């Protein structure tokens, strides 16, 4: 983003946050491409070489959660998160103070509810890490589940920060 498009350069923390958000977005997109390739190689291996890749369904299963939590902060930042904005839009135009208060309240609620999810995911992550939890079957294919839990926590944290950034931008 160049400075010519934004009249006022945003403070460093906000730019940093957007940078991180975009980084996660890139990681998620790459993961989608990898999934496509993986399924393709599996199908080819099974039909042409009699040698399928073990664990493709398991990897697909794990990846989707990672993809969603890597990209959801970017989706919020770009205004894609689903919202019915007719009422709140009208309120903000007519009574800006009240409209902004309501929007801020909604953002705070979002922060709280994502926080609740992350706080309960943390023990799920540490246990998966400590005990080496995996998907698949011993002897055939096994993949650890902790990276996905970690990505959920990471993506969720950035999502919380993006909600906070909305409040900051609103009153800046």
């Amino acid at each position, binding site marked *: 983003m160049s400075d010519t498009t934004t009249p006022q350069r945003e403070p460093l923390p906000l730019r940093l946050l957007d940078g991180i958000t975009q980084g996660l977005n890139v990681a998620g997109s790459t993961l989608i491409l990898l999934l496509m390739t993986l399924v393709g190689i599996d199908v080819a291996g*099974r039909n042409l070489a*009699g*040698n*399928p890749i*073990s*664990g*493709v*369904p*398991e990897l697909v299963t794990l990846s989707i959660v990672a993809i969603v939590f890597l990209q959801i902060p970017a989706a919020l930042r770009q205004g894609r998160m689903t919202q019915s904005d007719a009422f709140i839009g009208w309120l903000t135009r007519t009574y800006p103070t009240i409209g902004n208060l309501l929007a801020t309240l909604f953002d705070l609620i979002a922060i709280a509810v994502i926080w609740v999810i992350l706080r309960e995911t943390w023990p799920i992550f540490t246990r998966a890490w400590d*005990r*080496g*939890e*995996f*998907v*698949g*079957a*011993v*002897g*055939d*294919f096994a993949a650890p*589940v902790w990276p996905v839990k970690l990505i959920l926590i990471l993506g969720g944290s950035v999502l919380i920060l993006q909600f906070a950034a909305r409040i900051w931008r609103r009153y800046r």
Partner: protein
Amino acid sequence: QDYNVTIAAGHPPVFRWVKMISDVFVPTVTEQVEAAGRSISFSEQYGGSLAKVGEELEAVEAGLAEIGTCQALFDPAKLAVQNVTYYTPFTTSDLGKVSTIIDDMHANLPAMTEAYGENGVVYLGAPIVIDDYLLMTNFPVNSLADLDGRKVAAPGAAINWLSGTGAVGVSGNLTTYYNELKTGVYDGVIVFASAALPGKLFEVAPFITKAGLGAQYAGSLCANEAWYDSLPQEAKDALAAGADAAQAWYVDQLEAAVTASLTAMGEAGATIQDAPDGMREAWAAGMDNAAREWADSLDAQGKPASEVLTNYMTAMRDAGATPLRNWDTE
């Protein structure tokens, strides 16, 4: 009500191990509790309405449900040693024997119940036993060589059973076998009779080979530990009585279903045969000892898999089973 109990199962009630809960476990427990002058109500959450298949243990541990079907087969990381039967094929086709021995091991072998405690649940009983796995193919099987290069689907750990056969093991799922066999994604599947009939698999894979791969243990009823500990003895007794009744009913029903399924599939035109001479032996002999690898890797994580493996195989031999491979002593 004196007790309010939520029961979670990821599978819908068409599955026998869910039906045993609503048809036998719940009525038996209710009767016992009421006989003791108390009242109980159940909220039955099946088919993934509260927890998906493989998620039940977590839901019970969290206390979202008091009781659930703890699916060792679908939760192999948490209930690891419970998967012993899937690593010891060719041990017994007698599903009643598997049910009894697994239940006994849970009662007498601390190594067997350790994993439940680690996950904040207790074993209630009513083992979910799977009847003898069959090989169903869309081509006739006269020897092990016929499997060479064929794509055969198998669930989870059972894919290890195809090692050494020359078949291409594809990780598959019961729910889509029919379609995949019909279009030819697979040439065969490893599946059990009581599911093959309702799944109409005989239409697309009419050659059924009974190789004695074995009956299996997949999970059982479990309860939230804190909740269970808070119950008075009479309620615990009622739950135990319910689980015992469910276990007896389940084994009877499943044995009858296996006979009926094989008959029905035969009448529908399927070719059913015992594995040809030498094929079983050759299959078993050529297989990797995945049980050893499994037990060693779990032992290394501090999970008493070798102890469970030895106990299971010993109990089976003592009960008159004649395993083709002594997975524990090799």
